[in-house]
């Protein structure tokens, strides 16, 4: 099963490599990993997407908690949460396709943020599924490149992951 694990970690040099190293050393899957400082500059928030059986996920969360720099973590599979990923897609355009791509971006609530006579860059946020659907809806021949941030998430309601 797919799990999104969100980690509050000391903003120290090497913190990212401790997490990434743990996954490679113990043979765990890692689908995506995002990291950035939080409102408290001494802490970073890391979101990682992994897959595994319940036993594996239990070990992953325990091993992550065992890292000295990890302050707290939450597995979003266990709670109601919101998940978003940012994507930017650069597509080739011609006079005949420009209008269609614009309409498609509108339908998916994307925005065109760069325009040249022969290309658009479409910016889009949403769940990973939605971004997949948009990419699938485009003609593969028109895609120049796709960049995705990997998902990040936050729990619903009042409670949050903080000190």
């Amino acid at each position, binding site marked *: 099963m797919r799990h999104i694990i969100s980690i509050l*970690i*000391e903003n120290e*040099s*090497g913190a990212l*490599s*401790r997490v990434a*190293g743990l996954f490679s*050393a113990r043979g765990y899957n890692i689908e995506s990993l995002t990291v950035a400082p939080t409102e408290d500059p001494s802490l970073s928030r890391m979101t990682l997407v992994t897959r595994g059986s319940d*036993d594996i996920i*239990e*070990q992953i969360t*325990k*091993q992550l*908690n*065992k890292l*000295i*720099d*990890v*302050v707290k973590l939450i597995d979003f599979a266990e709670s109601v949460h919101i998940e978003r990923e940012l994507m930017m897609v650069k597509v080739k355009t011609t006079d005949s396709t420009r209008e269609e791509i614009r309409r498609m971006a509108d339908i998916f609530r994307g925005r065109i943020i760069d325009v040249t006579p022969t290309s658009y860059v479409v910016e889009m946020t949403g769940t990973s599924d939605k971004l997949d659907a948009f990419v699938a809806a485009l003609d593969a021949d028109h895609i120049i490149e796709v960049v995705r941030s990997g998902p990040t998430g936050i729990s619903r309601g009042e409670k949050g992951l903080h*000190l």
Partner: protein
Amino acid sequence: MELNGAQIVVQSLKDEGVEYIFGYPGGAVLHLYDAIFQQDDVKHILVRHEQGATHAADGYARATGKPGVVLVTSGPGATNAVTGIATAYLDSIPMVVISGQVSLPVIGSDAFQEVDMVGITRPCVKHNFLVKDVTKLAETIKKAFHVATTGRPGPVVVDIPKDITDPRIKVPYKYPKKVTMRSYNPAVTGHKGQIKKAVDLLLSAEKPMIYSGGGVILGEASKELTELTHILGYPITNTLMGLGAYPATDNQFVGMLGMHGTYEANMAMHESDVILAVGARFDDRVTGKLAEFCPYAKIIHIDIDPASISKTVKVDIPIVGEVKVVLDQMLEAIKESKNKPNKKALEAWWNQIDKWRAVKCLEYDRESRLIKPQYVIEQLYEVTRGDAFITSDVGQHQMYAAQYYHFDKPRRWINSGGLGTMGFGLPAAIGVKLAHPDADVACVTGEASIQMCIQELSTALQYNTPVKIVNLNNRYMGMVRQWQEFSYESRYSHSYMDTIPDFVKLAEAYGHVGMLVEKPEDVRPALEQAFALKDRTVFLDIITDRTENVYPMIEAGKGHHDMKLRVAPGTATDRELA
């Protein structure tokens, strides 16, 4: 008080109460060595190879419970220490390793003797630090000791760039009495509800087993474990790392379990209905084939490390906490409980265990005209009255020492169980002897293992650490040969050395006493003579039966009930019969 970085390191070690530091100088730590030169409180032990420094510090730590401290230079000094760091990591030994690093401005430029020590050691340390600011140096060292010695202990590396120890830069010094880390709060007491559940299950058992590991020794919980075992009247087995936590000469002790455990310990584990695992981690050398491990048992697991619980074997009642505290909580709960152990069932269980014991799985050919390694360990046990500190290397000799030296006290059996590091024994013995100068210290080794850190014989002379080296010389890497015999149709691929040094001359060249022992009747007198030489390191080169194997054995992929036993116990080895 204003101190420079180098002085801060040394003063921090003093304030931490460090007695010995095991190290080797080099460019990146010259400032540090200059500060060490100017004081006498922290004694520096100069080893001959950085691996020796880590093993000696490790031996010191295992024998005392205090953290071992190591100082190495950058680059090759640091990488040479890695094997010893990994050895300590796998056995959860508290250790602080200070490594020199190239100066901050040149880090990352492939400078002379530069390696990314923090990166290299990341997977084999509990934690590591790169110090980038001299004002944080003392606090970082305090944190290193705090992390290394609390919770599940382990090695911590503090990598210090050369410019941080610059003698010209002085900063105010104050060694923190305590540190708190918001991200690190190991559990201490066990969950009350879990303890009640565990006690109820334990007292309902008909075929109970207590299975205890190195965590009991690390957690100083031998007394509590022994009391609990006596109150319950249950059989107990120890892992290789747990030997000595419970007195081996006590009748409730059924021997070590696992790959080379006793028949009775492994069979009892297999048939048991309730297992109390204490400070043990269900290592693959203990469990054998996981699918066949303890098929009838409900398992209670006490461990300080939540990640150890249900890692390989799913347990029914986990209790996270310090073993000493949790065992105390359990003792109290047992005394308060209305239930008592089931006497009738227990009697039947002990009868069954006695039948397994009657197999006498550790018997060997006592009439042989060749020296049997088991006999040597038995004689060593008698000559030292079972009271020596025994270190070992890795292989057959290690298993013989574990099987035939009956450890009654914790911290007496010192070996690399997790990583299985050949070369560990001699430097570890030096560390032990420094910690306990009046105790008998023996290193049980083999002619292959001893050569991996033999240069430390020179350290033993310099610091007058008279240890006795019991070299079970079978002219083979015995354990490798044994596996090749069992699994590779006796194709002994590179498991012997065509050239073996004259160990007697070698010992003498290093300034020690060498003895060659070739006949069974000479073993006892040689050992007595060696231990009578209180002030000398003695190298006993004992020529043993090269065909001898370690039994019982659970071969890879088999369960506890599927042991290979010596054919016709007490008469001859199966090989001789064949």
